């Protein structure tokens, strides 16, 4: 078990195996990166070089675990093997946050490997809150749920997504991972005000922030995670930090991954943006 003197704060990046030589390659190679986020699934049940590299990174940096297959809104029972895998990994890494998405990823044993939208109804709220409770009981700690980008909404929707997340986080006593880009994307696609969304969330439950790039197709935006953060998302991020105060923030890049130094430089923009919002050094 590791113990750490520092608190979880500042600015992070996703841990990508191809950046490993940069991260631990030499003195101060990863200066400017305060912590790393892993995709949990990439390290559950695997060993070998990838796992050894991660353990070395975790000796030097705080780690947060971000999952994509909890499928918290699915109709199937929670996958106990997966939860055990999360728990085992968490025991090794001692992560600051364990997160996944408000979504479902498949039903009846099928995995569609996508973050699919949920109807925002009372039935869904009860269902998801119950399952978050089960997960938190199993892991013995809170999890954080992230707002996924959505491209459809349901006629059955009875509340906004921010109202849903607020109610859910209170009812289930869970944390939130706020993806500012995803708010922007969903706001554009569905025609709501991104500022209303962020102002409508319970600030004290927001544990972490994601920033990422997207692709604007004119009538809709797709959350691609393959490009630098867009200008209007930086504006929204500044407003968010002004409202929330310092929140640990990272840049997600899942495809079209640039050299490590480029991401460190982009992360510096996040630090400066938070600074302009009055919370740079402390964030």
């Amino acid at each position, binding site marked *: 078990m590791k113990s750490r003197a520092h608190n979880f704060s500042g600015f992070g990046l996703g841990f990508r195996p191809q950046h490993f030589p940069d991260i631990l390659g030499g003195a101060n190679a990863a200066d400017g990166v305060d912590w790393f986020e892993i995709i949990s699934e990439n390290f559950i049940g695997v060993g070998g070089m990838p796992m050894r590299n991660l353990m070395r990174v975790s000796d030097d940096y705080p780690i947060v675990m971000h999952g994509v297959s909890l499928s918290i809104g699915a109709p199937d029972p929670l996958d106990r093997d997966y939860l055990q895998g999360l728990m085992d990994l968490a025991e090794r890494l001692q992560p600051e946050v364990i997160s996944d998405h408000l979504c479902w990823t498949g039903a009846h044993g099928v995995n569609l490997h996508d973050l699919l939208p949920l*109807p925002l109804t009372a039935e869904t709220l009860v269902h998801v809150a119950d399952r978050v409770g089960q997960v938190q009981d199993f892991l013995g700690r809170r999890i954080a749920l992230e707002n996924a980008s959505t491209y459809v909404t349901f006629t059955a929707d009875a509340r906004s997504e921010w109202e849903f997340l607020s109610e859910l986080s209170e009812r289930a006593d869970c944390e939130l991972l706020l993806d500012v880009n995803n708010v922007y994307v969903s706001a554009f696609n569905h025609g709501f005000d991104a500022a209303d969304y962020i102002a409508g969330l319970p600030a004290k439950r927001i544990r972490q922030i994601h920033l990422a790039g997207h692709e604007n197709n004119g009538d809709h935006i797709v959350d691609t995670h393959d490009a630098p953060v867009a200008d209007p998302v930086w504006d929204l991020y500044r407003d968010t930090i002004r409202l929330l105060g310092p929140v640990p923030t990272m840049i997600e890049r899942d495809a079209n991954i640039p050299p490590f130094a480029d991401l460190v430089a982009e992360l510096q923009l996040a630090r400066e943006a938070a600074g302009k919002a009055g919370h740079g050094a402390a964030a």
Partner: protein
Amino acid sequence: MNTGLAELQRLFQDRLLAGGNDIERHLKDRGPFLKVYDHAYLARLLEVMGEDFPAVHTLLGDDQFGDAAVAFVRAHPSRARSIRWLGAGFSAWLREADPWRNLPVVADMAAFEWALGLAFDAPDSEPVGMPALAAVPAEAWPGLRFEFHRSLNIVRLAVDVAPFQRAVAAERDPEAAPEPLSEPGDCGGFGATWKACRCAIGRYRWMRRRGSIA
């Protein structure tokens, strides 16, 4: 009365797996951007298949590889938690499905690439070295049981796919199409020289027919 959560999910899933339209009337404005999910589903699966089977991709070319990969994921929706395992049944499917079953080189290449991938990130297990063996007293030898390292995989191949695969992995143009072996052979892939250097592409060696290590 509103359609319940489980039914909406069933309709949504039917859309992605089989192109069903019934979900649309439950979406606001009939879901003009539903196409984003349609596209993302197949694109993601194809991308992962391409990453896991680059030599099969090179062997078949873009169009045929795309056809094979789409037909495979249509026939075998993923049931694994991690997309890492999407291609687990690909070589077995290629051996049975038209027209690939007439081209054993395709299934062999898929089996070989899959085994190499397994060797790379299999769970760790501690190899037995000579000092540990030497420390076992002679009278205990009859009771010893050995297990293979967890990164060892053995695949039965009819075609010598390794030179072609090596060229693709090294981003070289393969010099020649894979040649049939004079007789089918077992190829064992390790993640390591048993201990120190589980290298990025794994190691493999040919084995004798009966599966003992050559």
